[in-house]
């Protein structure tokens, strides 16, 4: 084969240069659109994010979300005026449920964010370094994983005292080990790939390899897990709220609302039904989204 000359090609357009990414995105979109459950998840998450962003400005009774008391209109059933009815202080449940999206979004972001922020670096280091570093990190991780998260979080909040911040701290403390385990396993696999060895052979330093080679290849499962965890964190926080360790009044937090509302079962069913349904739909949305993302980003791993 002879040396063919390459005439210097005319400068390429953006679309040409990134043709492959564009195709990839279109492929993802195509796969995603094809799945009803993924689209349902996306719709739920978008609705949730919309409510979280604009909730306070679109609710009919914004003052009710800040603790307004209308003793005259307590425990009214759903009606045109109060779509979800009113609670034991006469506040509009619809308004409170919608504004509660904010609290939940915040809870989800903080817990998953903190969990990933701590867990991912530790997992990468443990997986890549091996030896005693890995042994140390994994021992501690396994220790945390040996106790079910909710039980541990309960102990932490019980000790710190109830409150939203303490709840989030407690859940973040029990959340990071999941990321360590996920990322460590993935790193162990990626580490064996030839391109990592190849990078070493050209003299790349460890941080370079971790940042340019290991991390990008661990990203898909991390994204999927974070999407799922948004839901699971909201659910866990709601559970703590239910036990009575969550957000203090009058913050419109769904778990706390169900916790109060359960005393009003069954005659005032709407009180617990709607916040509970909000939790359910939000968690469902994030889980479906995560599941859909996994199908396109990370088709091989499917265990949670």
């Amino acid at each position: 084969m002879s040396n063919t000359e390459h005439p210097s090609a005319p400068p390429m357009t953006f679309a040409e240069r990134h043709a492959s990414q564009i195709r990839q995105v279109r492929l993802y979109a195509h796969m995603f659109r094809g799945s009803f459950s993924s689209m349902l998840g996306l719709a739920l998450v978008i609705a949730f994010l919309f409510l979280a962003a604009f909730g306070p400005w679109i609710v009919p009774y914004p003052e009710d979300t800040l603790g307004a008391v209308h003793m005259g209109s307590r425990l009214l059933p759903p009606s045109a005026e109060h779509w979800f009815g009113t609670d034991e202080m006469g506040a509009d449940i619809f308004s409170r449920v919608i504004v509660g999206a904010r609290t939940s979004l915040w809870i989800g972001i903080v817990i998953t964010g903190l969990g990933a922020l701590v867990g991912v670096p530790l997992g990468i280091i443990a997986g890549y370094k091996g030896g005693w570093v890995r042994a140390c990190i994994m021992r501690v991780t396994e220790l945390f994983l040996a106790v079910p998260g909710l039980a541990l979080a309960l102990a932490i909040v019980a000790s710190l005292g109830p409150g939203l911040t303490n709840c989030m701290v407690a859940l973040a403390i029990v959340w990071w080990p999941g990321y360590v385990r996920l990322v460590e396993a993935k790193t162990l696999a990626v580490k064996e790939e030839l391109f990592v060895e190849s990078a070493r052979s050209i003299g790349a330093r460890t941080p370079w390899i971790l940042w340019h080679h290991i991390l990008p290849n661990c990203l898909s499962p991390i994204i999927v897990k974070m999407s799922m965890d948004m839901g699971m964190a909201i659910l866990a926080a709601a559970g703590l709220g239910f036990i009575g360790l969550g957000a203090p009044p009058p913050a419109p937090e769904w778990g706390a609302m169900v916790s109060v509302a359960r005393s009003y079962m069954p005659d005032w069913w709407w009180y617990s039904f709607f916040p509970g349904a909000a939790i359910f739909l939000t968690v469902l949305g994030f889980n479906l989204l995560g599941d859909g993302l996994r199908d396109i980003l990370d088709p091989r791993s499917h265990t949670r």
Partner: protein
Amino acid sequence: MSDTLLDIDGYSLDIATFDGPLHVLKDINLTVRRGDTLGIVGESGSGKTVLVRSVMGIGPKNSDVKAGTITFDGQDITRLSDKGWAKIRGVRISMIFQDPMTYLNPLFSIGRQISDVIAAHERAAGEGVSPKSARRHRTEELLDQVGLPNPADLFDQYPHQLSGGMRQRVLIAMALAGKPDLLIADEPTTALDVTVQAQVLDLIKSLVKKLNLTVVMISHDIGAIATIASRCAVMYKGEIVEQGETNDILGNPQHDYTRQLLAAVPDIEAKPARLMAAEAASEAPSKPTKLLEGMNLRKVYKTRAGGEFTAVNDISLAVNTGEIFGVVGESGSGKSTLARMLLRLVDPTAGDIIFEGQNISGIAGEPLRKIRQHMQFVFQNPHSALNGRHTIGDAIGEPLRIQRTMNRRDINARTEALLDIVQLPRNFKYRYPHELSGGQKQRVCIARAIALNPRLLILDEPTSALDISVQAQVLDFLQEVRKELNLTYVFISHDLAVIRQICDRTIVMKRGDIVEQGDTEQIFLHPAEDYTKALIESGRVTSRAANMRA
């Protein structure tokens, strides 16, 4: 009863993908008569596997038969229902698969798997299932038939306890369990070591004779086809470009592709071009200087069970500047570990590595990083040696960004220059690895390796993951690059024909030890060890077949 057992007539098949339908099979016409042995030759992506699987009714998902029919023993099986298949698949047509590890269920014993197949056949034949003991007896008979020792013990063993060759024999036994009319063999030897390949081929050959089987075998290995098949078809991009008697096709290829394919197979008997050139020049070689030396290298791995496994056992070697140094051995011989030790990608358990007079076995950190720019590695599998998330441009530029302080524009310019050197279009720098063919990817890997102007390149089976026709191109190209950049190569391969063509000196490895070493031509012409002889012999089969016309 018609003499024609299998008739494929004008068969075309599409597979639906995101980018539109893929025409995998185009107008295939094939006829197999009873007692025929048909070979189908083709490289990866030629559609040969899809074709034979369609015959079995286990074709790929989302496939769509566009035209044509497949007729088996007078019955149209193109679009058969599952119920219809139950009477044919495994009973009248059975199959030997490529990779014996993945095609045996790891959780069930050998005996169980075979006797289940026997039971299925009995059920299909409507005879009623024979008792367990009878099936066991029949299973042991089959195992014995495929040349496996101690069938009684084997019955209760699990796939992971067997070697690759034994597993392939088990698969063959399974395929024979139902006394099929037609046996399809899908690359039955590809996943095996060369020495084992020959044995398995011999077994198939003898079984064909003994049981008077009708066989369709597909392979990319012309040697294997030539051994088994009396008739042969050549597939290329979903089409059969040529078919006929095997001897005719190999001896007198009509189609361009067939000719190319045959030409690409290195001729193990041919005297290497370089020697002829050297003789012609009759240049007295200058006194060799040692570029790289390995002294008493040893690598011991700890196994999970707590034992030790010696991958490389006390090996010493010296590579002279400017030469191509060959390392030959089968899988598990420790050649890859040795190569990685030379580059300090794997730390030796004992021994020293001396590069340009400097002992690099003890250094670490920055000095090691610096020394690495002088010695580079080209990996066996270009598909996984490139990070799928980086563009080609990033991949080639990476060594420059790591080892040099160059600005973005200079790196870009150098990347383009390197693409020129490896004869790839410049706009490839925006592409991602998965968009490139195997040969292109290997070129990218080479570009990456030479980006830093190294003095030494270690090539770990650089062509074994590639199709034959591509192999030849890459090999040629490697020689060119070497000349141009004045490189020293350590070339690792299991393929003696390749080694003979390009290597000056060679070592032969077996289970971590050097069994033979010296001048390549010397080793080849006068092998001292049986192991070397066996290696050479197995190479000859293919080589002879491909070079029949010569």
